[in-house]
């Protein structure tokens, strides 16, 4: 029987292979280790340091000969750590103290890693992982734990965490995919996998325990789906998918470099929706022109206290820099009772989507909002940042946000911190109230970005998570289209830009309608960009306007959907 587990796909592609458990836990070996006298232990530690450095040197040469310079540089840093005199000295001191070489190595690595972890600079903090990795490698050598051995088949590396050295030390053609139990997309293991375009799924959690060594497996790095012990039919299905994917990939790679422009020269900006600054590199490979929605929630989630201005500044700065002069729209916190955070203290609500959430919280919680605003204004120095406020329903909310921003600027001046005065401030149009009021709101904001996921849900009073009414959820419903058209028109009449960052933007047929309405930007999850771009490049703005005119005469969402499928 096949078994499915779900993670988060971070590097797209389908991998077929056998599981190789990596990053094994060495605790068991440690417990059973019988140390000899201190002198022998010290010699064992020294021999292990030399052997590991030598093995790493071989890896580095192999990587260099294959022009894998980024990975060679990471391994070079590991080699230097293994031969570091300060590290060596600490290991010897600890060996004398503990009388146990592998334990001493791990302790020494941990102490050094802790120093780096406490540093202010993100690059330094990242080195902590490398130091622990090297420590583990040396300890494994002493304990006699085998490094993964390769057979004929391609392998899918699987572990709660996998040391970067394990991936870097294996030849690319042998690794089909990577599965990580931990959720981090920023670890070196993922960076190396990305550089090699190895399909990767992270955040599987404890489900990883269901996987055994040598299990045949299929990994979908796009959907995050993992199929253990797949049946013949499932395999055949995936083989077909792999072939199609390869053809599409080649085609999309050509498209990535081309602009999204209609046959008669109307340009639409296609941007990416991202959850973290780490997503941008991948998004760029699909040809995005900046970020239309940076969900700042990830900065707030998974922690016990309010993120500081500095923490946020670092994340936003990196995102803004990676956009290389293109716009990076950062949405302020959009959290409510549905995603409880320990420091928010929101009591359970009957209806969190109509409750205390997003800007409604931000405006009442200065301790939350002020650091975020200041962090974005400061990040603006490094490129083109924009602030987007979610869940706005009236003009006065936006005016209060603006007052906050002015206050934040004054505080920054007072604190002597550099910030940008050119950060655009706009709103997410996702409530019917905001859409109806766009002619007024347009006088105050720098842009509108239409959030269709909530706009459809609020306009039609349809919970999209409710399967029994999902047939009613349709972004082509005329009521929704009218609100969108009104928003875009209000923007054009007031000389500001309007974009869309909801799922509708990734529907190529919808893109044609929006083009006809005069939208200037569409933001979507990056893998959808090529499809939408292809559609835009195949049509004229004149034709888009004709289609829109026809659609506006229709009375029913399903009719519109069917019509678009027929004519486009």
């Amino acid at each position, binding site marked *: 029987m096949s078994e499915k587990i779900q993670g988060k796909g971070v590097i797209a592609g389908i991998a077929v292979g056998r599981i190789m458990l990596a990053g094994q836990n060495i605790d068991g070996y440690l417990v059973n280790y019988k140390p000899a006298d201190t002198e022998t232990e010290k010699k064992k530690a020294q021999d292990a340091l030399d052997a590991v450095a030598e093995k790493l040197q071989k890896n580095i040469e192999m990587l260099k000969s294959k022009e894998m310079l980024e990975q060679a*540089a990471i391994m*070079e*840093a590991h080699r*230097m*750590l293994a031969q*570091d*005199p*300060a*590290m060596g000295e600490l290991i010897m001191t600890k060996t004398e103290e503990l009388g146990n070489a592998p334990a001493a190595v791990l302790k020494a690595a941990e102490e*050094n890693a802790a*120093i*780096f972890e406490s*540093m202010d*600079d993100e*690059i*330094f903090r990242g*080195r902590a992982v490398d*130091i622990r990795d090297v420590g583990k490698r040396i300890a494994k050598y002493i304990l006699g734990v085998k490094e993964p051995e390769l057979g004929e088949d391609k392998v899918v590396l699987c572990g709660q965490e996998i040391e970067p050295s394990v991936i870097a030390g294996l030849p690319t053609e042998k690794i089909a995919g990577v599965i990580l139990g931990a959720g981090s997309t920023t670890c070196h293991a993922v960076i190396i996998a990305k550089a090699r375009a190895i399909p990767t799924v992270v955040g599987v959690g404890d489900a990883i325990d269901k996987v055994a060594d040598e299990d045949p497996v299929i990994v979908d790095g796009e959907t995050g789906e993992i199929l253990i012990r797949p049946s013949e039919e499932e395999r055949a299905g995936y083989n077909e998918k792999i072939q199609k994917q390869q053809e599409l990939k080649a085609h999309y790679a050509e498209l990535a470099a081309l602009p999204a422009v209609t046959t008669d020269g109307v340009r639409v900006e296609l941007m990416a929706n991202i959850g973290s600054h780490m997503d941008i590199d991948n998004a760029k490979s699909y040809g995005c022109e900046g970020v239309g929605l940076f969900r700042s929630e990830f900065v707030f989630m998974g922690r016990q206290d309010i993120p500081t201005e500095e923490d946020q500044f670092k994340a936003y700065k990196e995102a803004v820099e990676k956009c290389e002069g293109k716009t990076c729209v950062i949405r302020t916190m959009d959290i409510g009772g549905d995603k409880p955070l320990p420091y928010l203290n929101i009591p359970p609500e009957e209806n969190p989507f109509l409750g205390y959430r997003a800007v409604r919280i931000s405006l009442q919680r200065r301790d939350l909002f002020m650091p975020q605003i200041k962090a974005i204004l400061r990040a603006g120095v490094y490129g083109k940042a924009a602030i987007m406020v979610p869940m706005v329903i009236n003009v006065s909310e936006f005016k209060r946000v603006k007052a906050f921003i002015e206050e934040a600027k004054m505080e920054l001046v007072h604190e002597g911190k550099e910030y940008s005065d050119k950060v655009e401030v706009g709103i997410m149009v996702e409530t019917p109230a905001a859409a109806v009021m766009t002619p007024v709101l347009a006088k105050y904001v720098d842009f509108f970005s239409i959030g269709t996921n909530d706009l459809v849900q609020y306009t039609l009073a349809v919970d999209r998570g409710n399967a029994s009414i999902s047939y009613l959820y349709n972004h082509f419903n005329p009521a929704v289209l009218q609100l969108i058209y009104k928003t875009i028109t209000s923007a054009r009449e007031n000389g500001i830009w309007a974009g869309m960052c909801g799922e509708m933007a990734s529907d190529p047929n919808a893109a044609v309608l929006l083009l006809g309405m005069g939208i200037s930007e569409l933001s979507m999850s990056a893998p959808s960009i090529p499809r939408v771009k292809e559609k835009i490049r195949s049509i004229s703005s004149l034709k888009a306007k004709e289609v829109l005119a026809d659609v506006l005469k229709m009375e029913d969402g399903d009719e519109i959907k069917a019509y678009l499928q027929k004519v486009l």
Partner: protein
Amino acid sequence: MTEETITIENKTGIHARPASIFVQTATKFKSKVQIKAKGKTVDAKSILMIMSMGLVKGTEITICADGPDEAEAVKALRDLVASKFGEE
């Protein structure tokens, strides 16, 4: 013993890549090589020690070497810092 004082001019200071290059260069010499900065003295052949000093742009460091090739060692490291590690 030979020593020389120089100010770090490259933008990122001595961490990450510059630190690796610095240590690799220091390791080529037989002499004992040390760096004095901010009132501390550390082994210039240890990337851990160097990185933990937080040598940012504008920091003044003294490179000292003691041993058979001390003059060459100090010169090589001084030149490296002066070259801004090939950065701006």
